[in-house]
């Protein structure tokens, strides 16, 4: 049995960050807005599914991430959401699942700004190092956002 319950993980706080990204999107409230074809929309659907079902893992969901979404996103807007996934991550290390809803959302957000997907190393610190290898600015923004929230 998992050592942490779903109740201890605040999926809503991740969802709220994705909602902010949607509000700035040109396609919002238009027929062109299709969540299944959008990285942010996919993340939101996965989170809603997880919250409704009370489950953390969605088998096979990683394969469905719409990597063909090439809308423009900026590190400044994506970093707070990535930081929130870091905060909510239980750092499962050897037991990390790419189909965990937190990992799914993080992967979606990575695809918006990074050229290569990150094989999650199991801890936030190691993750930031891996992000830095691709995008130093993003890594610093995530680290700062994690710290600001932790200091509150």
């Amino acid at each position, binding site marked *: *049995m998992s050592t942490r*319950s779903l109740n201890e993980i605040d999926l809503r706080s991740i969802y709220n960050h994705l909602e902010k990204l949607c509000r700035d999107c040109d396609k919002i409230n238009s027929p062109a807005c*299709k969540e299944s074809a959008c990285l942010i929309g996919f993340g939101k*659907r996965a989170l809603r599914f997880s919250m409704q*079902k009370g489950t953390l*893992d969605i*088998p*096979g969901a990683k394969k*469905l991430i719409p990597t063909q979404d090439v809308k423009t996103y900026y590190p400044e807007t994506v970093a707070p959401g990535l930081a929130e996934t870091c905060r909510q991550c239980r750092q499962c290390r050897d037991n990390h699942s790419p189909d965990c809803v937190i990992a799914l959302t993080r992967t979606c957000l990575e695809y918006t700004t990074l050229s290569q997907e990150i094989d999650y190393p199991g801890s936030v610190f190691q993750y930031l190092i891996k992000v830095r290898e691709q995008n130093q600015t993003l890594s610093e923004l995530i680290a700062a956002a994690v710290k600001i929230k932790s200091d509150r």
Partner: protein
Amino acid sequence: MDGVMIVMGEAIFRQKNKQIAVNVVAACGFMTARQFAGLGKIAEELESGGLKMTTRQTVIVLLEENKLPAFKEGLPSLGLSISPFGDSVRAVKACSGNSELCPRAITDALNTGIEIQLKYLGQPVPSDFKIAVAGCPRGCTDPYCADFGIIGCGKDLYDIAIGGRGSSGSPLHGRKILEKCDQNTVFQVLDFVLDKYRTLAEPGERLCKTISRVGIEAFTPNFQLPEKNDVDEEFVAFLTSDE
């Protein structure tokens, strides 16, 4: 809790303090409140020396030996029984992964374990045969330490590992023989492995020893597994609904 077995085939052992330890099996460790309270009530009435949870998700009840008949009499009405011991299929371990419990589970491990236990518990085999079912690759029930380990890998999909041995001075991890089997296939593979084990093993030989002697290929079924979609269909439907 071990000791001298006092009833052949049943997990009842004399302890150092002369009491007997009676091993009670439930549905892969899952009990209703009525069962739990009922067991406690009987144990209290019979002045039990205590109860102890086991690593196989069974419960040991300590009793004076002359209380055993009364204790046995009380178990059937609670839907509980005494666990088998010796050269037989032992109590099945399963995690709490199902549609209602552990949020990490990706398949129904608990009910699969219960169904396996209902069918195979106590069946004779050359040596003890332990089965463990886990609802996700985290493997809380140590499936790689079981003779037959079942590991959830998708919705109604399981990997199967055989030849593990946990409680031993020479522990061994089982080896994966099949991937992405549905529940029906798990039962077919278990029948196959048990049949081969009964045929190939020497008396008293644990499965891991038989495997090291004759090779794991003899225990690897050549089933044509149907192509399985390991994506959660319910999520797929949810993903595109109202678009």
